[in-house]
């Protein structure tokens, strides 16, 4: 195992070589001339992967060339995203961009930031929901906060991993309301929800889609969603703002290409993405997975990513994480 550092130098120089010598664009005529690859920086089967696959199908019919999805998991999304950021800026390699991009620098996971990419557009929004067991003694956010204030550090809030988006969601609520939670990290949202059902913890702040089964089973109840508007999947549940907590918090997903991609290619890609994001297939899928369809064009998406970068970095610095 002592060989690892040497080995890793070897591997990374190999990777650089590939990135450099990679696809020489055969750029004549209109884009695209050959198949377009969408890189998903996570394992197959997750919400991000499925989103990208349905978008790929939609873009394929628009672009008239195959659009293939490749999973490059690892490094909390850093491996796949870095690969695209370093790829030739010819529009043939597209990355799925999760909200985690804006947290990478603060968590010291990679050097990626908003400026590493040119953005094609946003497609989805992932709402967070404050969920508690159905027999918990509080029915509103105000009651919950009151309970948390009376029991500082006693309310155990499960999240999907240290420094993960739902951990930050709980911290945002904590900071906003000046209460103190005991954050319990799990490996992903599902184990956290399971622990909530078994009453090993008091609350979770994960995607509302993840708790739907538990709510339907009569084991959990949602106190509030953190989106600006009510979640169409749970029309009776109030938003945080309606409940008197001035807080908005959403995850999101979109698509981007390497920095420096020519304007006409960007235009073609973003037109195709817009079409793909407005198909019924896509809308049905996104709603069924507890997410919300939210299209932003490139001009709106870039400033949004920038503002999210500021917002998350501010939160992360207050959370004493990022080691």
């Amino acid at each position, binding site marked *: *195992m002592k060989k*690892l*550092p040497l*080995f*890793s130098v*070897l*591997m*990374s120089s*190999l990777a650089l070589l590939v990135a450099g010598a990679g696809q020489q664009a055969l750029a004549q005529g209109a884009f695209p001339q050959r198949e377009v690859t969408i890189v998903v920086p996570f*394992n*197959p*089967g*997750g*919400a991000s*992967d*499925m989103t990208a*696959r349905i978008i790929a199908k939609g873009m394929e019919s628009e672009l008239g060339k195959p659009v293939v999805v*490749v*999973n*490059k*998991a*690892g*490094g*909390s999304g*850093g*491996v796949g995203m870095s690969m695209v950021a370093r790829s030739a800026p010819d529009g043939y390699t597209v990355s799925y961009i999760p909200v985690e991009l804006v947290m990478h620098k603060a*968590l*010291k*996971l*990679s050097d990626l930031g908003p400026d590493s990419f040119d953005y094609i557009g946003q497609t989805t929004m992932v709402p967070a929901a404050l969920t508690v067991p159905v027999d918990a003694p509080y029915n509103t956010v105000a009651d919950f906060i009151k309970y948390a204030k009376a029991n500082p*550090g006693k309310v155990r809030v499960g999240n999907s*991993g*240290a*420094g993960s988006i739902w951990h930050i969601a709980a911290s945002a609520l904590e900071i906003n309301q000046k209460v103190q939670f*005991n954050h*319990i*990290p*799990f*490996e992903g949202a*599902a184990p956290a*929800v*399971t622990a909530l*059902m*078994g*009453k*090993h913890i008091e609350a979770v702040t994960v995607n509302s*889609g993840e708790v*739907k*089964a*538990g709510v*339907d*089973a*009569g*084991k959990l109840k949602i106190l509030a969603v953190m989106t600006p508007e009510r979640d169409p999947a749970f029309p009776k549940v109030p938003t945080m703002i309606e409940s008197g907590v001035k807080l908005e918090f959403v995850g999101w997903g979109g698509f981007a290409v390497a920095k420096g991609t020519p304007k006409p290619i960007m235009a073609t890609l973003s037109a195709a993405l817009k079409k793909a994001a407005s198909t019924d*297939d896509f809308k049905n*899928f996104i709603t*069924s*997975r507890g997410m919300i369809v939210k299209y932003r064009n490139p001009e709106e998406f870039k400033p949004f990513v920038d503002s999210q970068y500021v917002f998350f970095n501010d939160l992360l610095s207050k959370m004493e*994480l990022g*080691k």
Partner: protein
Amino acid sequence: MDSLMGLLSGFSVALTWHNLLYCLIGVTVGQLVGVLPGIGPTTATALLIPLTYGMPPVSAIIMLSGIYYGGMYGGTITSVLINTPGEAASVITCLDGYEMAKQGRAGAALGVAAMGSFFGGIISVIGLALIGPPLADFALKFGPTEMFSLMLFGLTMVVGLMGASIVRGLVAMCIGLSLATIGMDPISGTLRFTFNQPFLINGIDLVTIAMGLFGLSEIFLGMENLAAAAKPAQITSFMPEKEEIRPTTFAVLRGTFLGFFIGLIPGTNSAIPALLSYSMEKKFSKNPEKFGHGAIEGVAGPETANNSYCGGAMIPLLTLGIPSSPTIAILLGAFIMHGLTPGPILFVQNPDFVWGVIASMVVGNGMLLFMNLPLAGWWAKIAEVPAKLLYPIVLILSIIGAYTVSNDLWDVGVMLVFGVVGYVMKKIDIPMAPIVLTYVLGAMMEKALLQSVKMNNGSLVGLVESPISLTMIVLTAIVLTGSIYAEIKNKKGAIALEND
């Protein structure tokens, strides 16, 4: 009685010709991806989900769950024949299965694995149908605290795999445990031992380690001298010998209950029932010294356990919507995509669907048995393929298998490194199974312990406050004391006196 009626009506759904066809496709694909190292049922299920868009939901889920339990049958084949486990559960099968193949008993190993798997699969599906819902609530009692104690218990079982020398076993254990700490720390997110490599942030993939240590090192060993590579003995029947039938039957029965029970617990994986079953069989066996040298119970028990695990793992999914393993999580995604939210409501609103899927699992297990029993003899012929042809094929298969882990050469390189490590270790007789199993248990154990401590505001008191956890810890203590006592009694206990 309701559930019995439900199950019967489920058969009317499962036995329509197109559902039978989808079931057959599912189990065949599952079996195939089980055989190919690297591509496990998790990946296959994920890749096939988009194909199920146009299907009726019940057919889609029948097919996808077929991949899930079919994969367990397939994984056996590579482990027994070429010592290359495709997933953690099959590591255990390698121990005795490959030894049996070397003795020309590959057919018997595969046959007994198929029959055990069938039995385990059927019983756990019936268990799922009849007593599933009440058991699900019990499963929820397993929080991080209970999980830690279960892992601790599992770790003492690893001791049973250590072979001739405890010290060499402990060396292997330390390697496995330390490898498990590579990557992001589960509680604070701190990066540990990553050498600034993005590939190491999420740790080293288990499949890569297992394929390197077991499969690749075996190839290196074989390539030393291809001409002299041991010719496997003539293949005998795929039935166990007469005196083996009784212990094998008991091994299958024990494996069934163990797998079913572990399957209920969210957050476990199929390696755990296999490991526990192997250790249990060794304890119960009249001649434990046969283990590691081709004991048929060492194949039957674990193989049964990982199949009945599949049925057990469906219970939290169907009754509460809890995914208890990565493959199940992808199945859950498929449910949702087809507009079905698993949970008690599903039993009320779509009984045809739920019972149809459950009945299809009975049917699918039957199909797998009929595919595997005759095929066992056929597969076993692979062991007769001349080494000079077989080894290069296995090598390229393993390379692709490692490549599929993250579609990158990194994992191929890591596998190569572990192949060399495994080769050296085989030469100086350091057992490799403890490396892989402590790797699985170690990461989960540290996480569960720290979660439990954090939930109890920094105190360990939870470990003895929870009755389940306390029971496990007491059991662990009993097993440990028992083993130490037995060692001392056999005058093998004192490390200094150890001799081969």
